[in-house]
């Protein structure tokens, strides 16, 4: 059995990444000017939850940092700190830092780097100027248990009253202006403590909203010998005099959000002015309002909150394995459905019979199920784009350029695996756009452009593909420089004329870089060729469009899901196989093709204006073929394919059967790497068919020389 603690830890880190996303989204909304309380609260809650979890796992670095972060956010919440652009910038940097710390904690690394100075400075300024957050300083960090006095009333009022006194002074004007107060009864259910909630902290959170006075009803307390310290038997009545006179019930209720299911809470507005005198007076012990009275009220309030919350989050977390299993089963359902259709057709049943029309319905249903199942794996690109805003900030800082990032189409959905595997290529493209594309503010001003450069990140769906574009309004590709570099490296024949688009594609050649000096960002040994390869691995294509002086846009076109491949189903040596359509550049019939012998038993075939090698697919796959290669069957065909890092070559097959989408079945752990096979699929009749990787078919000796790469790369579009 796996360590249960490890599982909980893993869940925590999973939650952290969601919370970090939420945090970043909130901060970006703040930056964009959306400064309402909900946004600030969501940001605060994200940090608070991370801190809470980190505390449970004893992650000191994380707790310390999150705590400091929380202090600053709390300042925002209490209107003691204005969300100016400078402050938000610090917060954004801190959220990046928090992400780093979470990653470190997950990998078990400790980070010696101290608290970022800007955040610490903000936190200090808050704690220094504003004494009432004194309770929230580092002494609170160790989550030490609060000793329970025999007289709980004294204990609670005392702890809470102390910081109150200082506040009374600073808040005096607000208090005078307000003539009402809120009365809360807070009746925790017995398992409140078990769930990690602590009334004291809730009251402290209330304190941020205004002055509070608490009364406790301990009438339900059992004799000391029967007391279970884990079960809370106290009921509190809290009088809250808000600092701001527009405090709403929802805002108060939000303090108790985490304890929502664990307590009975009533919030009532009391218009009668509460004199300063009565607040400081030791409260007369009032019994809590009768349950019969409070119950309907509290249910109403909680019901309202419930519905508000359900509209916020209606997702569940599901193990990917389960979804994969579902995808497999649906694939099987589709296959049995088509087998059934075939056999009904074979038995020549009346097409208007009940079974035939039932089959039609079944077909419709399976198609709908298949679509819905595929949609489960789909994910909006929002999280990916959010991650990129961080890359932009970092890159802008490193290159000392002013960059504005504009994202578009964040709700476009794409397979989860594709989203994950896009992160690296996109990161690289964005760094490139900022480092190579955008000019320095001075150069931009000289060129008559606004000093702040813009990077666009757009996603949109186009039929069954997703287009993702990274664009900048920088200087564009300097084609003369690219060509010069390519000539220096012998990547292009000197006498050859290249069209502008061909020059642009030179950027995808391995090791190609136009940057003269290694900057902070480039010179990592990663070039656009890596991006190119990553996109190709996702069955995608990549294109550049650039206008000198105006900007450059790189667009990626990807299939919606990795689970489906456009393929050509071919037959050879009595086997059916699938060749990915993306690898095929042309097909010819054997009868029409010009095939010439060359060397011992080797054949070449004419493709446009050159001759390329011809390989029999069955032989290439190591299957015996009983066909005489001189014999020409009318069905025999040639597929011209062009795998990665190789020139085109032709594959001879016995027949081309169909062109269709196939569901990719990974060969998994039970198989190792088989050089010429990338995966398998299951055809309509239930038979397994191999998906051929043409790159594995050519013996390595027949690979073309390096300089010839230019041809393939430029041709590949």
């Amino acid at each position: 059995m796996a360590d249960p603690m490890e599982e909980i830890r893993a869940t925590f880190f999973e939650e952290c990444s969601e919370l970090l996303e939420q945090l970043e989204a909130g901060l970006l909304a703040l930056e964009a000017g959306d400064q309402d309380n909900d946004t600030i609260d969501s940001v605060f809650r994200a940090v608070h939850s991370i801190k809470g979890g980190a505390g449970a796992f004893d992650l000191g670095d994380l707790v310390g940092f999150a705590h400091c972060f929380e202090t600053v956010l709390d300042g925002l919440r209490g209107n003691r700190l204005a969300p100016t652009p400078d402050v938000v910038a610090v917060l954004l940097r801190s959220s990046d830092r928090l992400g780093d710390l979470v990653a470190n904690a997950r990998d078990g690394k400790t980070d010696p780097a101290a608290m970022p100075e800007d955040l610490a400075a903000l936190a200090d300024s808050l704690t220094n100027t504003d004494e009432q957050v004194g309770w929230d300083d580092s002494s609170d960090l160790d989550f030490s248990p609060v000793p329970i006095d025999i007289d709980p009333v004294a204990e609670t009022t005392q702890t809470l009253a102390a910081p109150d006194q200082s506040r009374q002074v600073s808040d005096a004007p607000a208090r005078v202006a307000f003539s009402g107060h809120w009365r809360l009864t807070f009746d925790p259910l017995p398992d409140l403590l078990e769930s990690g909630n602590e009334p004291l902290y809730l009251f402290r959170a209330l304190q941020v909203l205004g002055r509070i006075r608490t009364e406790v009803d301990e009438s339900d307390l059992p004799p000391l010998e029967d007391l279970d310290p884990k079960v809370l038997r106290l009921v509190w009545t809290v009088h809250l005099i808000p600092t701001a006179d527009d405090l709403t019930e929802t805002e108060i209720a939000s303090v108790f959000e985490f304890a929502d299911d664990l307590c009975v809470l009533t919030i009532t507005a009391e218009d009668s002015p509460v004199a300063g005198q009565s607040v400081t007076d030791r409260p007369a012990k009032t019994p809590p309002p009768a349950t019969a009275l409070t119950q309907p009220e509290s249910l109403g309030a909680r019901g309202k909150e419930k519905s508000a919350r359900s509209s916020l989050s209606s997702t569940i977390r599901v193990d990917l394995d389960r979804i994969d299993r579902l995808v497999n089963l649906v694939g099987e359902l589709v296959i049995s459905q088509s087998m059934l259709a075939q056999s009904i057709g074979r038995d020549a049943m009346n097409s208007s019979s009940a079974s035939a029309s039932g089959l039609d319905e079944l077909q419709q249903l399976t198609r709908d199920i298949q679509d819905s199942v595929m949609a489960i794996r789909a994910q909006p690109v929002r999280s990916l784009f959010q991650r990129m805003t961080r890359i932009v900030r970092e890159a802008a800082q490193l290159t000392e350029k002013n960059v504005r990032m504009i994202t578009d189409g964040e709700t476009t959905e794409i397979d989860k695996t594709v989203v994950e595997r896009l992160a690296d290529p996109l990161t690289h493209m964005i760094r490139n756009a900022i480092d190579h594309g955008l000019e320095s503010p001075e150069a931009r001003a000289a060129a008559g452009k606004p000093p702040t450069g813009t990077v666009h990140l757009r996603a949109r769906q186009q039929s069954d593909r997703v287009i993702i574009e990274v664009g900048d309004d920088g200087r564009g590709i300097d084609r003369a420089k690219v060509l010069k570099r390519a000539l220096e490296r012998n990547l292009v024949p000197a006498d050859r004329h290249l069209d502008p688009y061909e020059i642009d594609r030179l950027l995808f050649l391995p090791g190609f870089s136009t940057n003269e000096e290694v900057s902070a960002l480039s010179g990592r040994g990663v070039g656009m060729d890596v991006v190119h390869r990553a996109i190709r691995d996702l069955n995608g294509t990549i294109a550049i469009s650039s206008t000198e002086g105006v900007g450059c846009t790189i667009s990626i076109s990807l299939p919606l899901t990795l689970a489906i491949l456009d393929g050509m189903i071919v037959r050879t040596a009595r086997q059916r196989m699938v060749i990915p359509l993306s690898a095929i550049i042309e097909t010819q019939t054997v009868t029409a093709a010009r095939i010439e012998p060359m060397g011992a038993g080797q054949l070449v075939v004419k493709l446009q204006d050159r001759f390329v090698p011809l390989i029999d697919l069955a032989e290439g796959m190591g299957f015996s073929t009983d066909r005489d290669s001189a014999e020409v069957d009318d069905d025999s065909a040639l597929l011209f394919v062009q795998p990665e890092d190789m020139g085109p070559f032709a594959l001879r097959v016995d027949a081309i059967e169909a062109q269709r989408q196939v569901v990719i079945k990974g060969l998994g752990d039970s198989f190792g790497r088989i050089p010429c096979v990338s995966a398998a699929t299951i055809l309509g009749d239930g038979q397994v068919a191999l998906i051929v990787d043409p790159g594995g078919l050519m013996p390595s000796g027949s690979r073309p020389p390096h300089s010839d790469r230019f041809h393939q790369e430029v041709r590949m579009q």
Partner: protein
Amino acid sequence: MTELAQETSQGSAPARIADQTKDPIATSAELLTFQCGGRGYAVDIMTVREIRSWSQPTPLPHAPPYMLGMVNLRGSVLPVMDLAQRLGQAPTSESARNVIIVIQQGSRVHGLLVDAVSDIVHPSVDQLQDVPRVGVEATDAMAEKLFVVDDDMIQVLSVDNLLPLRPGMSEDLPR
């Protein structure tokens, strides 16, 4: 198709495999016996996921002869070995009684083509004899215990040794 054993739960599988390397039979002496090339064999029933009827596999390129190919196992792809050939005997002849025993070891799932399934037996630990070491050939190591039923010798096969050393049949042991 008979479901004999449910897939073992992910969590407990590694622990059980670890036990197996020490003394597999002592911890579990429930065995599935079957016929293959005219002889009796058995495997630990906990490794058996299901037994299914024979269907024509799709061959794999550059695979050793005992690797028959892949069949469709309810939407996923299952590699199938000819057990007789894997044990160094003549290939299994086609027959309607031929079945594929689906075995699972960790995350690896393989199908074994055998002549026919016989029984489920519970030999006591002292009925299980050690395998006499008669040679150094790799096929000897496939059996880890022996026992006798009605005067017939039954070899208890080690699923660990049965599966190719590395996944990827093209890189298997030179034979």
